[in-house]
C-alpha cells in the first residue's frame, strides 16, 4: 500500500497540474446560465444589425457579467495579456453600445471573435 501511494501521489499531483494548466479550453465554455459570453455577443451583433438598442444594452450587461465569471476560472491556464486584451475589447464594445455606434460595435465584436478563437489554445 505504502509503495502504491509512493508512486500514486506524485503521478496524481502531476496529472492535477497538467489538468489545471490545460483547463482553459474547457472552462471558457459556458457551465451555467449566466456565463454565456459568446452567445451574448452573438445576440449583441444581431441586435445592432436590427438597430434594437434596448435589447443590445441588456445583453451588454449580461456579457460583462459572463466575462467576469469566465475570466476568474480561466486565469490559471491563459496568458495575462490575453485576458487584458479581451477586457479592453469588452470595455470598447460597452462604450460603442452606449454611443449607439453600430459600426464600432461590429468592428469590436469581430475583433472579439478572433480573440475568443485564440483564447486558451
Amino acid at each position, binding site marked *: 500500500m505504502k509503495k502504491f501511494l509512493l508512486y500514486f501521489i*506524485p503521478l496524481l499531483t502531476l496529472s492535477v497540474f497538467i489538468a489545471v494548466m*490545460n483547463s482553459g479550453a474547457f472552462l471558457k465554455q459556458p457551465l451555467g446560465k449566466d456565463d454565456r459570453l459568446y452567445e451574448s455577443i452573438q445576440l449583441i451583433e444581431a441586435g445592432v444589425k436590427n438597430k434594437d438598442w434596448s435589447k443590445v444594452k441588456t445583453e451588454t450587461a449580461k456579457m460583462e457579467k459572463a466575462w467576469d465569471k469566465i475570466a476568474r476560472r480561466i*486565469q*490559471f*491556464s491563459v496568458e*495575462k495579456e490575453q485576458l487584458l486584451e479581451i477586457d479592453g475589447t469588452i470595455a470598447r464594445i460597452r462604450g460603442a453600445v452606449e454611443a449607439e455606434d453600430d459600426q464600432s460595435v461590429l468592428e469590436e465584436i469581430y475583433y472579439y471573435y478572433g480573440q475568443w478563437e485564440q483564447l486558451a489554445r
Partner: protein
Amino acid sequence: MNETVVVIIRVIISFFTLLIFTRLLGKQEVGQLTFFDYINGITIGSIAATLATDLSAKAWAHWLGLVGYALLTGLLQYITIKNRYLGKVLDGEPTVVIENGKILETNLRKMRIKLSELMTLLRSQQIFDITQVEYAVFEINGELSIKPKPEYLPVTRKDLQIPTKPGRLATEVIQDGVVLDQNLEQRKKDRDWLHQQLRAHNIENIKEVSYALILPNDRLYVDKFDDNIGKETEMGDYDGPY
C-alpha cells in the same frame, strides 16, 4: 485576473513539480556534480522560477520546458550508466595533471586549466611543495585528487601494527522522548536494558530524553531536554532584545 491567486497556484505547481523531478533524478551530491549538471540545475531552477512568476506566458509552456529538461537529464543519466563509451563522451574522464612531481602541460592545456589555478587547487589540499606529489588527477566534478609520494604519506595504524577492531555505526534509540524499538532490536537490546542504562544516567522518565544513541562500543549516549548549561556559554555581548 487575480494575480495573487494565480501566482500562488503557479508556485504550488512549480514547487511540487521540481520536488518530484529532483527526487526522480536521484541524489547525486552537490559536490559531485559535473559542470554540466551544475549549469543544467541552474537552468531547471530558472525555468521553475519563471513558471511561478511570469504571468505573460501560459504556465503550460514553462512546465513543458521544465519537463523537457528533466526528461533529457534523466535520459543522459541513463545513457551514461548503460553505455561506458557514451558515458565518457558525455561526462568526460579524469585527467592526470601531475606525474612524479612534473606538471603535464599538454593535459592542463586540454582541460583549459591555468597553472595558477592548479597551484590554488594543490594549496587547498594542503600541498605546498609540488615535488611531494606522485599523481594529481583532475576529476570530472572539477576537484583535484592527489596521491602524495609514499615518503610523504601519513603513518597508519597498520604501518605501526596497532591492532584494530572493525568499526560500527552509532544507532539512534530515543528521539524527542520516543523510543525507536526497531533500532533497539537491530542492536539486540530491549526496553529493560534501555531503562537500566537511563537510570544509570539518573533519568527515570524517557520523556526527559531529547536524543539517545547506542555508541559503537555499546555504551549509551544520552542528551536531555534540560541541558543545565550556565551563563558561561552565552556568546552574546548585548542584553537584547535583538
